[in-house]
Structures are given as structure tokens and as C-alpha cells.
């Protein structure tokens, strides 16, 4: 063995042995995608609602360019975790580290401006606006013409609108929703809405994309489409993706690493294969009684 292939194997082996904390520079996956260093790290996150602990002392990291899944039974705290990452919830304890710095408590809009885009479990689109307009809202942070320029539709505002419109159209093409560009979102079927929501998030050109159950309630064909899009996004743009999903088949196929949660605790973390064979995870899914 010699050359890059060898070093890759060594790296992979190292990762396998020591869980996920091994290398800082990253590695290349079997299908040739490059996975970089840690981009975000959750350290000892605890989130309470009144007396209920939704998340109990959970730590994990997210690497640049990987697809990271969070799975677990209903009520495990998966969505809460996503809401912590995107700033909709603020944990009582613990730290979020993003790009090597500790992130102070921030509002969701500030976090969105840092390059973290998301979709919601119960689709949160602008129902009254067209698909194109919805996607364009994803570009809002890429526009910096002043309000006066905007009001009078002056130089910079005009140039920006054209550039952003082009980007929005690219995303629309990429997700194959050209034929519904002008349709008000409220009239679309569920599966397409989910895709539009993904388009809006993508339009922001995020570093990290958070997907809360992107395939919930879809039929097999729609699920296949969505899986393909998730993989394509990751592959083409190198976007880091954190995803919550219930469909085990989908999760195991898509993700590089999986965090398993149950009753607010982390019970497993590793590659799909590792997680699949983890006894605690199997118990949680088969519904072994908690003590």
C-alpha cells in the first residue's frame, strides 16, 4: 500500500478505532467526498422546559462536509437539538462551538446570517408568496443595498436583484421545481412544499444545512427524490448537512455518522454500522422498558 489510498485507509481505521474525535484535517469517504475538520461542536448541552429536561448533557460534533443524522424515537429531543443549533431555543447549560469559536447566545436571524439554514418539521413557508419569492427570501442576507437604493430601485439594488434572482433560479433548476416557479406555495401538495423549503434554505448558500424530517409524510417515490437531492447538495456544494429522520433505511443510506437520542440522552454515536449494532439503540427502538 502506498500513496493517498493508503493514508486514507489509515485515517479511516483511526477514526474507526477512536470514535470520531481523531483527526483535525479530515478524510475522504469511500465514495470520494471530502470530509473536513470539526465545524460545529455541541458541548454538554442541557435544555429544560420548566421542570422537563428535553436534552440532558449531550455532546457531539459536526464535521465540514459530512451528512450527520440525529435519530431517536418520538419525543427524544431531536427537534429540540436542531432548535438549539439554529438558535430558536437557548440551552440552560452547555456550549455551542462554531468554526473554532464559542458561540454567544444569539437570535435565530443572527445565526441564519452566519450561514446556518434550516427547514422545519411542519413546513414553515410563506404560503401567500410564489415559489420564486419564497426562494428569493433565502437570498435576503446576500443583499446589502441601502434602503434608499431599494426604495428608488437604484444602481446597486437593481444589480443585486438580478444577481440574486439568477442564483435563485439556479437553485430552482437544481431541485427541479421550474414548472411551479410562479405558483403560490399555499396551493402546492405537501411533498413539493418540502422541496420548496429546501430550495429556500439552499438559496442562502449555507455552510450548514439543518433538515428537520425532510421526508416525513412522503411516499416512496418522493422519498427517493428527496434523498437524491440531499446527496446532490452535499456532493455538489460540499454543504454540511444535519438531518433528523425517522425512516431508518433512509438514514442508514444517507448519513456518514449518526447521533442516537432517547429521552433527551445520547445513547449512541458513530457510523451507521456501529449504531445499528449498538444494544442500547436496539433497545430504544424495540421499546425496552425504562427504569
Amino acid at each position, binding site marked *: 500500500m502506498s500513496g493517498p489510498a493508503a493514508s486514507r485507509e489509515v485515517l479511516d481505521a483511526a477514526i474507526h478505532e477512536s470514535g470520531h474525535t481523531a483527526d483535525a484535517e479530515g478524510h475522504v469517504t469511500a465514495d470520494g467526498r471530502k470530509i473536513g475538520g470539526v465545524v460545529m461542536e455541541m458541548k454538554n448541552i442541557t435544555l429544560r422546559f420548566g421542570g422537563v429536561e428535553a436534552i440532558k448533557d449531550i455532546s457531539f460534533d459536526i464535521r465540514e462536509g459530512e451528512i450527520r443524522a440525529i435519530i431517536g424515537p418520538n419525543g427524544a429531543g431531536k427537534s429540540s437539538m436542531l432548535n438549539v443549533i439554529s438558535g*430558536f431555543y437557548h440551552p440552560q447549560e452547555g456550549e455551542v462551538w462554531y468554526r473554532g469559536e464559542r458561540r454567544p447566545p444569539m437570535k435565530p436571524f443572527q445565526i*441564519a446570517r452566519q450561514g446556518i439554514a434550516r427547514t422545519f418539521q411542519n413546513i*414553515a413557508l410563506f404560503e*401567500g408568496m410564489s415559489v420564486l419569492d419564497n426562494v428569493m427570501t433565502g437570498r*435576503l442576507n446576500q443583499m446589502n443595498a441601502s434602503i434608499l437604493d*431599494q*426604495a428608488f430601485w437604484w444602481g446597486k439594488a437593481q444589480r*443585486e436583484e438580478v444577481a440574486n434572482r439568477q442564483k435563485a433560479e439556479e437553485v430552482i433548476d437544481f431541485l427541479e421545481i421550474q414548472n411551479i416557479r410562479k405558483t403560490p406555495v399555499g396551493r402546492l401538495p405537501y411533498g413539493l412544499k418540502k422541496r420548496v423549503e429546501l430550495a*429556500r434554505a439552499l438559496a442562502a448558500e449555507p455552510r450548514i444545512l439543518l433538515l428537520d424530517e425532510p421526508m416525513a409524510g412522503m411516499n416512496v417515490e418522493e422519498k427517493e427524490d428527496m434523498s437524491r437531492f440531499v446527496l446532490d447538495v452535499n456532493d455538489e456544494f460540499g454543504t454540511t448537512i444535519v438531518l433528523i429522520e425517522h425512516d431508518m433505511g433512509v438514514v442508514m443510506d444517507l448519513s456518514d455518522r449518526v447521533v442516537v437520542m432517547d429521552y433527551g440522552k445520547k445513547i449512541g454515536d458513530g457510523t451507521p454500522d456501529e449504531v445499528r449494532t449498538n444494544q442500547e439503540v436496539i433497545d430504544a427502538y424495540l421499546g425496552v422498558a425504562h427504569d
Partner: protein
Amino acid sequence: MPEQLIFAMEVTLNGLLNGVMYALVALGFVLIFKASGIFNYAQGVMALFAAMTLVGIQQGRVPFGHLINEIFGTDIHYFGWEVPALAAILLTVVVMIGFAWLVQKFVFRHLVGQEPIILFMATIGLAYFLEGVSDLMWGSEIRNLDVGLPQGINDAIDLATFEIFGYGFFIDNLDIAAAVIATVLVGGLIAFAQYTKQGRAMRAVADDHQAALSVGIKLNYVWVLVWSLAGIVALVAGIMWGAKSGVQFSLSLIALKALPVLMLGGFTSIPGAIVGGLIIGVGEALFEFAVGPMIGGATENWFAYVLALVFLVFRPQGLFGEKIIERV
């Protein structure tokens, strides 16, 4: 052509022009209601305050003059200069934007996520507070407002209609000016909402707060923007009504005229506010013309409300409002 029909035409025309004014006031409500779910009871007082401020700046009055004189025993009322109308309008716009910022910072920021009724109560409080501030700043006397808008009968229309019908229509130049300005303002607002970044953010916030946050929209900023726009609309309404009948307390009651317009047009629709305003303007004028004499007149005072009530029974969401669908 029968005389009655010619009169009816004149009445309709005047009603239309009046309706534009109603629409203008209603528009201020719709802007805020759409973006934040707040029914802004203070919209009328905002028009009064804006008009008072405009007159005050124009005439070079010292704000809080009475108060200053009481405390320091001085006797100053005027700075001694006069500000040109256009500059005074621009300064008043700045004041209204400042007001929007203060309202957001000290009132509604702290009430995010509260029940609509609580927000509504807050605007009632705001209305009385602003009324007081307006009195304190500029006094409570009736003031003449003159920003150079044309007034009096429009000779061209008078002449043209006289030649066609043998009867000259009485159309006030001020009404025509108001209609033109209101149309430009509404057109501008619609274009702004449709094609600019801020406009898109405004529509996004109006549609879904959570989704707006997730794409990086700062809610506070949008709310200040919306209150500023409502302030500017209030200023324009204040100028029109103030030029017509003087700037005085009753100006704040135009808010009550906007209520039936909103019920007709729907609280969430800008086209609704416009069409609603026109229908009520024409409706009340024609009703007064046709039925008024039989029942002793003064039907303008109540006709709009009766029409609104009928609408509440048969179409509670208004002409253009979002349809109310209840899921069970």
C-alpha cells in the same frame, strides 16, 4: 339626460374622491396588522400628531413651548423662522420614523407573542399617550395647514361638464390632489413590497414569523419599518384631512372611518383597503343623495357601519381578506 342622473354622477365622483381618503387611512391599519397582527388603534392619533408636527415645524414653533415657559418663566413660542413646506414634510417623516422606533423599542418589543387583545389594548394606551404628547408639544388649538395644495372648485371640470350636460360639476381641487397623491403613494408602497429586499422581508414576516427568522430576517427591523411606513401614511392622511378642515383633535377620529372600510376590504389586504374605501365613499354619498332626503339626512354618519355590519354577517373575512377556514 335626466337631471337626477347628472346629479348622481357628480355625487358618485365626489364619493370616489372621498373614498380614496378613507382608503388611505385604512391602508395604515392594514400595513401594521399584516406584518405584526396588531390592530393599531392609534393610527388616527398618529395622523393628528403628524399633521400637528408638520404645522409646528413649518411655522417654526418651539416644541413643548408651553412646558418650557411654565418651568423657566420664559415667553418663547417661535424660533423666528419658517420652514418651506417640502423640508417640513421631510422633517416630519424623520419624526415619524423616530416615533416608530420608540414605539417598537419601548412597547411592542416587550409584547412579542402576547394575545392580540393585549396588543390592541397597548395601542389604545399608545393612542392616549400620543394625544397627550401632541398637546404638550404643539398645543391643542386648531391650526391651519397649508403646504401649497390647490384648493377650491376645479374650473376645467366645471366647464367641461357644463358643456356636456349643461350643468357644471363641483369638484374640489384638493380632493383631486388627494386622490392623485394617494394613488401614487399606494402604487409606490405596492412596488416597494413587491420588488425590494425590505418589501420581501415585510411580506415574509407578514406570512410566517418563524420562517422569517430562519432565513435571517430581523423581526424588529421589519416592525420598525412597517410602523414607519404607517407613520408616513398617517402623515399623508393628516395633510389631506388637515388641509380640508384644519388640524384639530377631530382629525384623530378619522380612524373610526377606517373601521368599516377594513371590515369591507379585509384587514389583511392592501387592494381590499383601496376597494373598500372606494365602495364606502361612493356608497355613502349615493345613499345620502338617494335616501337621505326621505329620512332626514345625515346618513353619512352611520351608513358605512351598517354596510360593514351586513358584510360581517355574510362575509366576515371581507372582500379580499384571507378566507377563514376552521380545522376540526
